[in-house]
C-alpha cells in the first residue's frame, strides 16, 4: 500500500500569529515537504493545480513535479488534481509524457474537474460542461498516449489530423491515471470503464458517502471486466494533526480548525472529527482511525494525507510529515499487509506495469 501527502498550496494567514508566508516561501516550503516525505519513507507526493489566489500551487503541476523528480529518487510524484476540464488534452499528453521521461516513470496523475466556477471561463470553458469535458478530454488524452497517429474530432477543441503527441510515453506505457471525484457517480463510472484508479478525496466528507462512491466504482470496475470488485484501485484522502499527547494536539490545532478557509466558523472540531477522517490526536489515535478505513471501503491502494493547510507553520507541517513517516505509516503498512488478500493488487507503478507488460509479452512468445 502507498502512503503519502497531498497539498493544495494554500497561502493562508496563520490565525494564531497573524503572519502570512510569501508565495516564494510557500513554494520553497512545498519542495521541502516533498523532500522530507521521501526521506522519512513515504511513497507519494501529490500537488494540486491552481489558477487563483490564495493558492501557490502550480498552474501546471509538471513544473513542480519535474523539479521534484530531480531532487528525489524514490518518491512517486502525482497530482491532486490535474484539471481535465480546462486544460487542453494535447498539452496534458505532451507535458506529462515529458515528465515521465525526466522522472524515469515515477509519476502518475489524478484527474479532477475543478470546483472553482470562475476558472472555467478563464480558459474558455463553461462549468456546466464539467462532466462532458472530463469525458471527452480524457478519451482523447488516452488516445494521444496509446496511439501514435491520432485523427480526432470532438466538441470542445479543434480537430486533429494525423497528430503525434511527443514525446511518446516512457517505454510505451501511458502514465497511470486516477480519477478523483467527491460527488459525481459519472466519474466513478469513468474510472471503472477504463480500469483506472479511483480516488475519493473524503477529507471533508462523512464515511457513509465515501463508502457509497467507492462501492459504485468497485461494482462497475468488475462489470467492465477489469477484475473482481476487490481488485479495483482505490485511493483515499486523509487529514491529521498529531502531537505525542492528544490534548496538546487538540489545543494546538483548534485555532487553525476554527478559522480554516474550507470549514472554519462551522462545525466544532469534535463534530468534524467524528463525521470526517480528520483525526487530531496522538500518532496512536491516527493509526487506529486509518487502520479502520479499509473496513469501510475494502483493502485499498493509496492513502494521502493533508498536513500543510489552514496557515499551519511550515515547521509544524514538517513535524507532521516526520511523525507520519517515522511512527504512523510503518504501523499502517504492517496492518494493511496483514489484512490484504494476495489477489488484491498494489497500486500500479511504472515499474510494475512494465514488468506486467513484459510478462504478457513473454506469454505471447510462448503461445507462438
Amino acid at each position, binding site marked *: 500500500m502507498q502512503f503519502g501527502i497531498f497539498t493544495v498550496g494554500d497561502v493562508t494567514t496563520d490565525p494564531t500569529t497573524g503572519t502570512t508566508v510569501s508565495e516564494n516561501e510557500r513554494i520553497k516550503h512545498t519542495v521541502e515537504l516533498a523532500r522530507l516525505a521521501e526521506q522519512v519513507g513515504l511513497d507519494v507526493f501529490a500537488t494540486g493545480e491552481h489558477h487563483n489566489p490564495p493558492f501557490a500551487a502550480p498552474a501546471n503541476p509538471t513544473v513542480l513535479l519535474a523539479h521534484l523528480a530531480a531532487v528525489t529518487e524514490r518518491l512517486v510524484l502525482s497530482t491532486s488534481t490535474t484539471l481535465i476540464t480546462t486544460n487542453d488534452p494535447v498539452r496534458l499528453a505532451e507535458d506529462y509524457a515529458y515528465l515521465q521521461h525526466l522522472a524515469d516513470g515515477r509519476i502518475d496523475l489524478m484527474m479532477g474537474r475543478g470546483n472553482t466556477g470562475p476558472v472555467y471561463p478563464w480558459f474558455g470553458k463553461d462549468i456546466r460542461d464539467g*462532466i*462532458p469535458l472530463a*469525458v471527452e478530454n480524457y*478519451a482523447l488524452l488516452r488516445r494521444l498516449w496509446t496511439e501514435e497517429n491520432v485523427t480526432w474530432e470532438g466538441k470542445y477543441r479543434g480537430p486533429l489530423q494525423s497528430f503525434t503527441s511527443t514525446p511518446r510515453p516512457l517505454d510505451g506505457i501511458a502514465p497511470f491515471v486516477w480519477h478523483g471525484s467527491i460527488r459525481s*457517480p*459519472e466519474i*466513478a*463510472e*469513468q474510472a*471503472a*470503464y477504463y480500469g483506472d484508479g479511483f480516488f475519493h478525496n473524503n477529507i*471533508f*466528507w*462523512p464515511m457513509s*458517502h465515501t463508502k*457509497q*462512491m467507492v*462501492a*459504485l466504482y468497485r461494482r*462497475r470496475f468488475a462489470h*467492465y471486466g477489469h477484475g473482481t470488485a476487490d481488485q479495483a484501485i482505490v485511493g483515499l484522502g486523509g487529514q491529521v494533526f498529531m502531537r505525542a499527547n492528544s490534548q496538546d494536539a487538540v489545543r494546538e490545532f483548534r485555532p487553525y480548525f476554527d478559522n480554516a478557509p474550507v*470549514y*472554519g*466558523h*462551522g*462545525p466544532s472540531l469534535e*463534530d*468534524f472529527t467524528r*463525521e470526517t477522517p480528520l483525526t487530531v490526536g496522538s500518532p496512536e489515535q491516527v493509526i487506529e482511525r486509518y487502520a479502520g478505513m479499509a473496513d469501510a471501503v475494502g483493502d485499498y491502494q493509496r492513502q494521502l494525507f493533508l498536513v500543510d493547510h489552514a496557515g499551519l507553520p511550515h515547521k509544524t507541517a514538517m513535524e507532521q510529515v516526520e511523525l507520519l513517516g517515522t511512527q504512523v505509516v510503518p504501523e499502517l503498512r504492517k496492518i494493511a499487509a496483514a489484512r490484504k488478500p494476495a489477489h488484491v493488487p498494489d497500486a500500479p507503478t511504472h515499474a510494475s506495469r512494465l514488468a506486467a507488460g513484459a510478462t504478457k509479452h513473454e506469454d505471447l512468445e510462448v503461445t507462438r
Partner: protein
Amino acid sequence: MSTRRVVVVQAGLGQPSSSRLLADRLATATRDALLERGDEAEVVTVDLREHAHAMADALLTGFATGELRAALDAVRDADAVIAVTPVFQASYSGLFKTFVDVLDDGALRGTPVLMAATAGTARHSLVLEHAMRPMFAYLKAITVPTAVFAASEDWGSGGTVDTGLSGRIDVAAGELADLLTGRPPRTDRVDEFADPVPFEQLLGH
C-alpha cells in the same frame, strides 16, 4: 387503504409557537381528511429550531449529518409535506429558507405541499403567494391551491366555517388529501449510486 407519509416542516421559534400550533392543526386535519378518503397518515414533524446549528454547519461543509440528515431524508421520501413558516421582514424566515437551501436537489419534485404561514398581522398574508408559492414552483413541488395564513387575530376569533381559520385549515387539508388519493405511494427516489449512467452513454456512443 394505504399509509401516507406526511412530513410537517415548521420554522416557528417560540415556545409555544403559533407556527407549531398551526402545523399541528394542519397535520390533524390532513390525517382526518385522509381517513375520510380511506387512507392512513404517518405524520413526522420537523421543528427546524432544533436543527439550526446543524443547518449552518451543512451550509459551510456541504454535507448534513445526524438528525438533520434524517429530517432531510424524511422530506425526500415524504408522500406529502406541510410547510409552515413565520413571516419575518415580509418573507419566509431565514431558518425556513436555510432548510430549503440544504435540501437535496430534486427532494420535493412532484411532492404535494400544503403551505402555511403565521404573522402578527394579516397584512403579511400574501407572503404565501408572493414568496412561498414561487419557491415551491421552482422546486417542482405541487402546491395545493389553498395556502393557510394565520395572523394573531385569527387565533382569537371564530369566524364561519367558510371564512375562519378552522375552515381554511379544513379546505387546505382536504385539497392535500385529494391530491394524495389514488396516487401510488411514493417509491424511493432513484439512487444514482445504485444505477449509474453507463459510460458508453456518457461517451455519446
